[in-house]
């Protein structure tokens, strides 16, 4: 039989109401309060322990509370961790999210909680943990706890998870392809969606437009003193591509010296070329400076228009490259640039 542990706040853990909200965490053997319902609905698993913590205690002493609770769990064997349901209670939602995330990171077991859509914990933690869509108050306990149990049973049995909508949890910002069970071809789906749109009937887009990440414009630098680095997603590399950066869907980047070079030599000279598979390479192979403008920047350097050019340039390939990978590579490159005292970057694509 598999084992689960449940987290409850002071109220559902039967310690007390608002006056006990500063209650420091404890762990109890077996089930307490609402845990009984969960325990009864788990199919091949039991709740062996219940962790109880006051909402305010978690809110104002998060670090300590998490450490204490993770300490309780260190010598316990468990296959799944539940918290809540937290309904619309903001502090309880936060506490459930915090502890689920911490338990998942430390013990690598599935974690499940449940909240109402207006609980601020949803937006804070939906990317990190499964948060089932729950009701607004404890009156929904008889609906929400069985949902947690059912989903927990699925996770424990390693059953296929069919997506956020089908399973009733908040989307985690993860989009994966699936084969439709009814095998409706895209052409029919498109025409059906179009007819609904024409007729003013509700329809569901298969790709909801996500909120955009906007990056604020960086503060200005004094060009005449600035150390400027060249960074490119245009795939300009030494001809032997020493880091084997992929020609598309890149996960690698390279750092190459341009110290003492007035301009980048080309492919025919055995110097630099592009490995980018997303554009016609002819012009860049003939003159890599059209993508990584070292020649123009050296001229500015000589004129005193800019302070200096950083001795290394950075390159990757920006075709088919997933945005998440691009972000990771940028953060890695930025660390080098900061350490080398670079003031500004000219980022070129292709």
């Amino acid at each position: 039989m598999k084992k689960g542990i449940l987290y409850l706040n002071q109220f559902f853990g039967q310690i007390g109401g608002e006056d006990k909200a500063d209650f420091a965490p404890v762990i109890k053997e077996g089930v307490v309060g609402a845990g009984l319902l969960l325990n009864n609905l788990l199919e091949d698993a039991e709740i062996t322990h219940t962790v109880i913590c006051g909402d305010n205690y978690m809110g104002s002493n998060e670090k300590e509370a998490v450490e204490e609770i993770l300490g309780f769990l260190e010598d316990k064997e468990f296959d799944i961790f539940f918290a809540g349901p937290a309904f619309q209670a903001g502090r309880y939602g936060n506490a459930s999210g915090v502890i689920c995330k911490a338990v998942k990171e430390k013990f690598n077991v599935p974690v499940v909680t449940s909240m109402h859509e207006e609980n601020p914990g949803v937006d804070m933690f939906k990317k990190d943990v499964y948060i089932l869509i729950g009701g607004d108050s404890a009156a929904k306990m008889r609906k929400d706890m069985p949902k947690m149990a059912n989903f927990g049973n699925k996770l424990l049995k390693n059953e296929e998870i069919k997506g956020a909508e089908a399973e009733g949890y908040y989307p985690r910002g993860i989009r994966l392809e699936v084969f439709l069970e009814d095998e409706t071809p895209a052409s029919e789906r498109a025409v059906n969606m179009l007819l609904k749109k024409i007729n003013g009937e509700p329809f569901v887009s298969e790709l909801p437009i996500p909120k955009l990440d906007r990056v604020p414009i960086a503060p200005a630098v004094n060009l005449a003193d600035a150390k400027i680095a060249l960074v490119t997603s245009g795939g300009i590399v030494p001809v032997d591509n020493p880091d084997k950066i992929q020609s598309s869907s890149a996960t690698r980047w390279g750092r190459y010296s341009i110290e003492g070079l007035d301009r980048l030599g080309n492919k025919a000279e055995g110097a630099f070329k592009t490995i980018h598979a997303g554009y016609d390479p002819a012009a860049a192979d003939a003159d890599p400076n059209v993508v990584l403008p070292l020649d123009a920047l050296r001229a500015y350097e000589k004129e005193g228009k800019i302070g200096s050019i950083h001795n290394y340039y950075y390159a990757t390939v920006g075709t088919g490259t997933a945005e998440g990978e691009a972000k990771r590579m940028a953060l890695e490159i930025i660390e080098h640039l900061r350490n080398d005292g670079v003031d500004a970057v000219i980022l070129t694509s292709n």
Partner: protein
Amino acid sequence: MNLEIGNFQVKNVQFGQTSSYSEGTLTINKEEALSVVFQDDHITEADIVLAKPGDDVRIVPVKEAVEPRFRLSGGPTFPGVTGKIERVGEGKTVALKNCSVLAVGKHWGSFGDGLIDMSGEGAKYSIFSKLNNICLVADTDEEFERHEIQKKNHAIRWAAHRLAEYLGSIVKDMTPESKEVYDLGPITKREEKISKLPSVVYVMQPQSQIEESGFNVLNYGWDTNRMLPTFMHPNEVLDGAMIGASYMCCSSKWSTYDFQNCPTIKSLYKEHGKTINFLGVIMSNLNVSLEQKERAGMFVQQIATSLGADAAIIAEEGYGNTDADFIECFRLLEEAGIKTVGMTNECTGSDGTSQPLAALDVSADAIVSCGNVSTLIELPAMGTVIGELESLMRDGLSGGWEDDDVLGPSVREDGSIIMANDSMFCGDSVLGQSIKTVKEF
């Protein structure tokens, strides 16, 4: 324009003394068929290999797929490729269904080439796994591009079209087993009960990103990079006017076969006269510079508006840079009051957390998603490889790699592979065959 496609359902393909067709069996005289292939001196080696659904076979690098057809009403089956330019889409054409001619590199692959498994787990990723494939496996003397990632693959792609026309000619004097009729009259001459229905255009954005000629989709033999958006009759698309590109990540690609069988055109035909008035196709493109994108979007908006379209379906062949064209065009159609549905695939990364399209706009509120190009696919070795397995990792195929810190090389010593969906041959079928979607997890 009235087009009648006479169908012959191919259940079995074999080699024999005489090229013939009888009761579902297509017999090919290999020597005669290869003589058609060798009409181009640039073909240095060629063989025809058969692969049917269920075979323990992996095919890679696949460059193109063509449905064998023959145009009975005069002119070439593929204008601008197998002959001079003559209008298609009217009259009669015969088709060998349930099969395709695949252009396969004997050794060398390129960025836009793909992979097909004929059985097992890998077979679900491409519609071509379910067809009787007549594989033209060839090498050429095109030395200038031998080691280029981007190849025009001219000789072998053109040979595949010649071979498809030759095979189609086998049934040119026979009575078709079934017929499909596509009849769509002039827009201003339609019956009132049809013209009062909501008017719909289908906006197609075929691949045209490479500036140099020879890589992009052709429209009557004309490089779509050199084209401004134009109005076409859907029958022209179904009848060989459009030729698949060499360039584009393969799962996003529209092969000639896909154009010939375009499911969205067929679905719109099905609704024509019942729920909609299908006006026709606006053939746009996907050029790379911003000015070209804006100009193309402007033309699409103007043509759709001038035609009086109430609604549109728009489909893009590609992702990344081309998402800008797709979204801009979507926005411009909505701006003109034309209710629009988009069809595309996504690039959300192998973990699904990346932004799905490179460009986004709130006006794009109705999208059908056909797959995630970055899905990681791990497949066991297959008994036989048609082509050359190493090409997947060696030749810059969009979904293969030589080495990866975590995943290792795409092709392992035991013949098993790990790849991105990107290189599944025409796997995302954005023209409408895809039974995939992308969901939130």
